[in-house]
């Protein structure tokens, strides 16, 4: 059986949970088994909806102690659930939560872990073979998990949630919940659009913008595309834009469907954070900018002319569709 941990930060299921269940259902299909989703916390509502994405059962450990995240507690509960339900494969998201617990589960369950996978595995005898992006997108590695229990964590935006079933009744699951040692004092959320790691469209700008006062044209394009804004490292370091917008090697690594880079030259450290984007559009006045080599579409021109024109074209397109 394939067990999917469907994460629900703050009691909400987000795209990551639907991606994980969709992926879990497909892995289960490959292995000729079923996909079960496990939900942690008392305030996670609407868990039965996970059935739509392919979970044939949804079990919930509805203990209020799980409404705050502690990797140690979560790993203890998830490993108990995996044992109780006799899971052969465990699937998590490669998110801040998943990264905190996947390694713990691997130790607890004596399981092989491959983290950050972006495609389906292949069964080979009792092994599971799976690929992932390594060297910050510069190579692909293939691994074979040889242990009886196998753990995969799924990169965001690698799998599109698909409706493959019906909502199901949520079954309670009773497993011991140890006391938490970490206490969450507060959660500060960044107001605005979809968080960068989850965004499907990202509009990003760099030093070519010349001045933080010029960002209006970037914001307008992002609004027209319902995109999340991002920036390059020099821009964040000069405090032209907030640090949480910094994408690249030391910032956030993203994988949107569409990445539009405006006035960013494309240093290798920047590319390392964005080169897994499905489609890259580069707007730069310098035709020699290295970013064009990594781009699918390019516009060589003055961004102060090109970006407003693109925004207008997007608005016209959106109005017609």
């Amino acid at each position: 059986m394939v067990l999917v941990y469907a994460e629900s930060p703050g009691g909400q299921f987000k795209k990551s949970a639907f991606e994980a269940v969709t992926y879990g259902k497909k892995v289960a299909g490959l292995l000729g088994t079923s996909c079960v989703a496990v939900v942690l916390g008392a305030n996670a509502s609407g868990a039965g909806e996970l059935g739509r994405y392919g979970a044939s059962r949804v079990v919930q450990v509805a203990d209020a102690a799980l409404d705050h995240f502690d990797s140690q507690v979560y790993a203890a509960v998830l490993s108990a659930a995996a044992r109780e339900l006799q899971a052969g494969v465990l699937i998590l998201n490669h998110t801040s939560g998943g990264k905190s617990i996947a390694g713990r589960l691997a130790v607890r369950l004596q399981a092989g872990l491959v983290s950050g996978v972006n495609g389906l595995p292949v069964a080979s005898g009792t092994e599971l073979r799976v690929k992932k992006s390594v060297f910050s997108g510069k190579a692909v590695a293939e691994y074979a998990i040889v242990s009886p229990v196998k753990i995969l964590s799924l990169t965001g935006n690698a799998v599109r949630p698909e409706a493959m079933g019906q909502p199901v009744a949520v079954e309670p699951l009773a497993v011991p919940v140890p006391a938490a040692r970490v206490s969450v004092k507060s959660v500060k959320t960044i107001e605005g659009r979809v968080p960068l790691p989850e965004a499907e469209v990202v509009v990003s700008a760099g030093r070519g913008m010349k001045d933080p006062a010029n960002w209006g044209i970037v914001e307008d394009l992002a609004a027209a595309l319902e995109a999340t804004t991002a920036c390059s490292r020099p821009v964040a370091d000069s405090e032209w834009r907030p640090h949480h917008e910094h994408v690249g090697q030391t910032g956030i690594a993203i994988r949107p469907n569409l990445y539009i880079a405006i006035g960013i030259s494309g240093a290798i450290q920047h590319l390392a954070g964005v080169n897994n984007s499905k489609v890259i559009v580069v707007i730069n006045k310098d035709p020699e900018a290295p970013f064009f080599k990594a781009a699918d579409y390019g516009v060589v021109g003055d961004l102060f002319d090109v970006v407003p024109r693109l925004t207008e074209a997007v608005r016209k397109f959106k109005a017609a569709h």
Partner: protein
Amino acid sequence: MKILVCISQTPDTTAKISFTPDGASFNPAGVQFIMNPYDEWYALVRACEIREAGGGTVVALNVGPAANEVTIRKALAIGADEAVRIDADPSSAAFVAKQVAEYAKAENFDLIFLGKETIDYNGSEVGAMVAEHLDLPYISNASQLHLNGNAATLERDIEGGVEVLEVALPLVLSAAKGMAEQRIPNMRGIMMARSKPLKVVPPVALDEPVKTIGFTLPPAKAGVRLVDPEQMDELVRLLHEEAKVI
């Protein structure tokens, strides 16, 4: 305060990545190696700051061959007091975590630092594994750490925000941007690093649950398609009809 900082050696961020002809392993020929930036800039520097403020010892630990001692000496030059090298090829996250935990369990560290990920295998796995082996709390992607006696207050980067946490030491944490500022080792640090203790420890065996099959390079991009800056309707059409992303 006894602090362990786990450091990895990785190819330089600008290194050209290639593999042996059979694709089985990384080809180190001509590659400049560095200390993994998250380990160096954030984990190690914050550990040194804490020692400077409150006293104690910072131990830098690396799992790797003797050739890694250049990187280990750099950690000593930046400010670690002593170093340990587990004499083995860091073949997997599970193997490295086992070595770190085996060394740490007898040492009673108050803090065990790692970087949030390594820039080679990008797994973010070792910290959680070490914490589980040692039955300690683990805070990943920590961008702030402040200590008040035995109590730690941390900020952890999560999707779309920051979690503010409190936890009592000992703990394991992985450091992200914001934790500290990069330090360039000075001449005095480099001189002192030469005489600081560097202990070599044999590894413990592990039955690997994951085997590496091999590596490939991603397919090359087809090449950029240039669109006339006057023709933004055309770009939108291509993104809709050809790329199917809007």
